């Protein structure tokens, strides 16, 4: 593929990232000049800014029918990059809305600035077509997230989350970097597409290729929280400020899948039979371990952490199907999952704000204290459990359909069995919310406007994706087509 010569119009492809940088700067400046009482509006500025950038991206940054390599081949302007960028921007906007008014970080300009920088990194991850660009993008995604996870310095669990996330991230990233350097050493190329061409010529031994692939997989596995690279997940999810957890569990995981899809389908198609074997194994382990450990959790954030591990496993099924439908189902699943998990964590944020706890048993009586929150949580949990008319149902059907289409019926069956385990613990939480009573039954939970907006938008998203899935699937199929 040839690299497109730079013209001013190419700037449009990275317009969202440029605007994000501007927005981050604006937030830091406002933080400096605003009085403390005014700083509670920072979250709104961030959310509205992100929404505007999302709009701009939808209008001006749409890729053409043909993918283009731009900026000296460091970025690829295609549907995969575009679709994921939209997803990240949306997740960041919702995260900002959920953070408003939260003590210790919701009124801090640097909190939102870090969030935005991390989105820039994710956007570049989704578009990266060069090893160096990719590595830099991954690091500029991760480093702000390490800081965000440990943002509440005064609290031990948050500090622990930050350090743990950092140590795991640093370790896996060096292993991945080693894999990158071997790739460069073997082929003399840093551009993914040039590199893929060299690998496809097949002059390299199979074990070597698998070794390189596995080293790289360590880094991606960390990002998507796949077993056995998941050990950081529960502690980080539990300790980090909850909106940050929401963001890590949705956008950051999706970013990991964006690069995984590109690598798996475009760089390593030559050793397909082998890597699909390895990744199927990962998928099975990820689903099963995530779901089984989730059964024993008593803290809602830890439960959602293990559930998010399990969901990474379902998405991996779509990846190993190695087909247009498979890649599309993975993208579709991520869209459904982002909407759903944002609602789930949104409810956790609001509940903890009033009740000051994340214990599942404390959720008793939620349906009496706030019917709206209870309903939102029901929508989210049932969608995670794969029940119609919610997004999670169609997403699971597509993923399993992709597996069956590619002859991986056994994998679909494992996925289906896992879905049943998943449903069990989601229903257990739902039971506490609707069935049990607590002494605080009459203690209503306040829902601020920003969070209510975020919850309503995402819940409607869950139902829309679940019932009118044709346009979303079309989007996912277009995205998938750009990978083949």
């Amino acid at each position, binding site marked *: 593929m040839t690299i497109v010569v730079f013209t001013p119009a190419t700037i449009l492809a990275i317009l969202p990232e440029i605007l994000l940088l501007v927005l981050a700067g604006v937030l830091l400046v406002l933080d400096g000049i605003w009085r403390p009482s005014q700083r509670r509006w920072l979250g709104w500025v961030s959310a509205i800014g992100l929404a505007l950038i999302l709009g701009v991206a939808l209008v001006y940054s749409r890729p053409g029918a043909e993918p283009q390599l731009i900026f000296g081949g460091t970025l690829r302007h295609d549907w995969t990059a575009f679709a994921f960028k939209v997803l990240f921007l949306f997740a960041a906007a919702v995260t900002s809305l959920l953070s408003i008014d939260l003590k210790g970080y919701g009124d801090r300009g640097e909190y939102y600035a870090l969030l935005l920088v991390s989105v820039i990194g994710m956007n570049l991850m989704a578009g990266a077509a060069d090893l160096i660009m990719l590595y830099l993008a991954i690091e500029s995604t991760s480093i702000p997230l390490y800081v965000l996870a440990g943002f509440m310095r005064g609290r031990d669990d948050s500090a622990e989350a930050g350090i743990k996330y950092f140590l795991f991230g640093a370790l896996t990233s060096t292993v991945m970097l080693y894999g990158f350097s071997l790739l460069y050493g073997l082929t003399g190329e840093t551009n993914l597409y040039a590199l893929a061409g060299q690998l496809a010529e097949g002059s390299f031994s199979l074990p070597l290729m698998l070794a390189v692939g596995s080293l790289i997989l360590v880094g991606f596995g960390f990002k998507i929280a796949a077993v056995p690279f998941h050990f950081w997940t529960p502690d980080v999810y539990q300790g980090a400020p909850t909106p940050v957890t929401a963001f890590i569990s949705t956008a950051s995981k999706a970013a990991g899948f964006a690069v995984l899809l590109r690598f798996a389908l475009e760089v390593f198609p030559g050793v397909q039979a082998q890597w699909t074997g390895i990744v199927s194994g990962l998928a099975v382990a990820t689903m099963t371990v995530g779901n089984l450990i989730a059964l024993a959790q008593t803290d809602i954030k830890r439960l959602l952490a293990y559930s998010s591990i399990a969901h990474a496993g379902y998405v991996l099924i779509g990846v190993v199907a190695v087909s247009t439908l498979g890649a599309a189902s993975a993208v579709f699943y991520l869209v459904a999952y982002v909407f759903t998990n944002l609602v789930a964590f949104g409810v956790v944020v609001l509940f903890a704000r009033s009740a000051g706890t994340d214990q599942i048993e404390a959720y008793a009586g939620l349906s009496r204290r706030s019917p709206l929150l209870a309903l939102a949580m029901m929508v989210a949990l049932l969608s995670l459990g794969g029940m119609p*008319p919610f997004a999670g149902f169609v997403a699971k059907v597509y993923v399993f*359909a992709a597996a*069956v289409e590619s002859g991986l019926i056994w994998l679909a069956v494992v996925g289906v069995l896992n879905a049943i385990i998943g449903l069990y613990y989601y229903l257990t939480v*739902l*039971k506490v919310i*609707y069935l049990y009573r607590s002494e605080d039954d009459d203690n209503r939970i306040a829902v601020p406007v920003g969070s209510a907006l975020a919850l309503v938008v995402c819940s409607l998203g869950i139902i829309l994706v679940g019932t009118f899935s044709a346009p979303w699937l079309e989007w996912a199929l277009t995205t998938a087509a750009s990978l083949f």
Partner: protein
Amino acid sequence: MDFPILTVITLLPIGASLLILAYPGERHGLIRWTALAAASLALLLSLVAYLTYDQSAGGYQFVQRMPWIPQLGISYYVGVDGMSLPLVLLTGVVIFTGVLISWSVDDRPREFFAFLFILATGVFGVFVSLDLFQLFFFYEIAVFPMYLLIAIWGWKVTREYAAMKLTLYLFIGSVVSLVGALAMYFTSGLGTFDMLALEQAGFSTEFQALWFPFVFFGFAVLGGIFPFHNWSPDGHVAAPTAVSMFHAGVLMKLGAFAALRVGIMLLPEGAKQWAWLILILGTINVIYGAFIAMVQTDFKYVIGFSSVSHMGLVMLGFATLNLQGITGAGLQMFSHGVMTALFFAVVGMVYDRAHTREIPELGGMARKLPLVAIAFIIGSLVSMGMPGFSGFIAEFPIFLGLWQTAPWAAIIAVLGIVITAAYLMRVVGRVFFGEMPAKFEGHITPINLGDKVALFLMSGLVVLLGVLPAVMAPMIESGAEAVLRLVGGA
């Protein structure tokens, strides 16, 4: 374009559910009347559809189709035939009577009726689906509200256990079927989930023999087939009255119907190869269910296991793969649906007043609740297959069909009727006649108007069908003929 009656019937309940959720939770009266209005409308519309169905033309009518997820060949595709239309009517009857019976629910009635109506949408949706994906979509919608309905409003002792057991059983069954459905979709190469097209896909015999058990038994779990029936009595007993009615009356038919429509009609060769297993399991259902019902001391468990026993007859009817058997199974689905809803309504009325369901502790209820006793006796006569009641009209053709294909099964299963008579007589004698224990004096208040209407409607229907089988039998027979054209036995 004609009035899209099936779409309205299907979406009306969920619309009502959203409306009810939008009300303030304290307005109990408003919530109840809205629920009753919606349920009456649903019943009325299903009756209209039933009466305007053109029997001479047969086939699928009130058909409506539009693309839904065109990339995968999924469409919104509804239509009813002689097999499914009576079940639509049945759902209308049960939702209407269920709302009447639930008038006294006063713990969060808003959520109760909202979930009940979501359930109704799921059930209507399955019965009218002609698209396989759509069928699953509605099938799952019917499953999850059950969990909350039972867990929140059910019998305190077992509700959490029973609700979870039921949901997991049904979910396992449906996802196993789903894998089979996906296999059909990709193997057919037609790129469509349209069931009428898949009927003609010409799957190889090996394929059908391999996948039939997954699809059929996956759905038959909800039909209560042995050995996967275990969720059903626990679920029936733990559920609040209206939900038990829905559950035994309609949901079990949902499973049986889907097993017929997807299992037998799409994989007829598979059905022929596996009919022996369905025969054996169905026979066990009939006998085993009846024996277990006999030793129960809890009134509601008796009815719960009697459902298992009666659903066995439906399975036997399917397994005959001949006209009488399948027509009988169709009639049995309707007849048993109304009858068991009637039973559970009666159990609920007695329990609400006596606060116990232990048969030895009850007695003499007929004196205080004469209408309830009459309704229960009518139900019992239906259940025993007495001529003049719908049970006879349904069970007779099943045995007729069974005699032609598997006389041994007919002989064994007939014994089930004798056992049924035994346990029902015992319940009637102990609960409704004899001396009323002194502790109930003053507690047994008369039933209200809504309860009476519900009892009259359901008793009337089973008698009407028994006396005038022509109101339904020819329609179901036309549906059964369509099944047989696919099986190739007609």
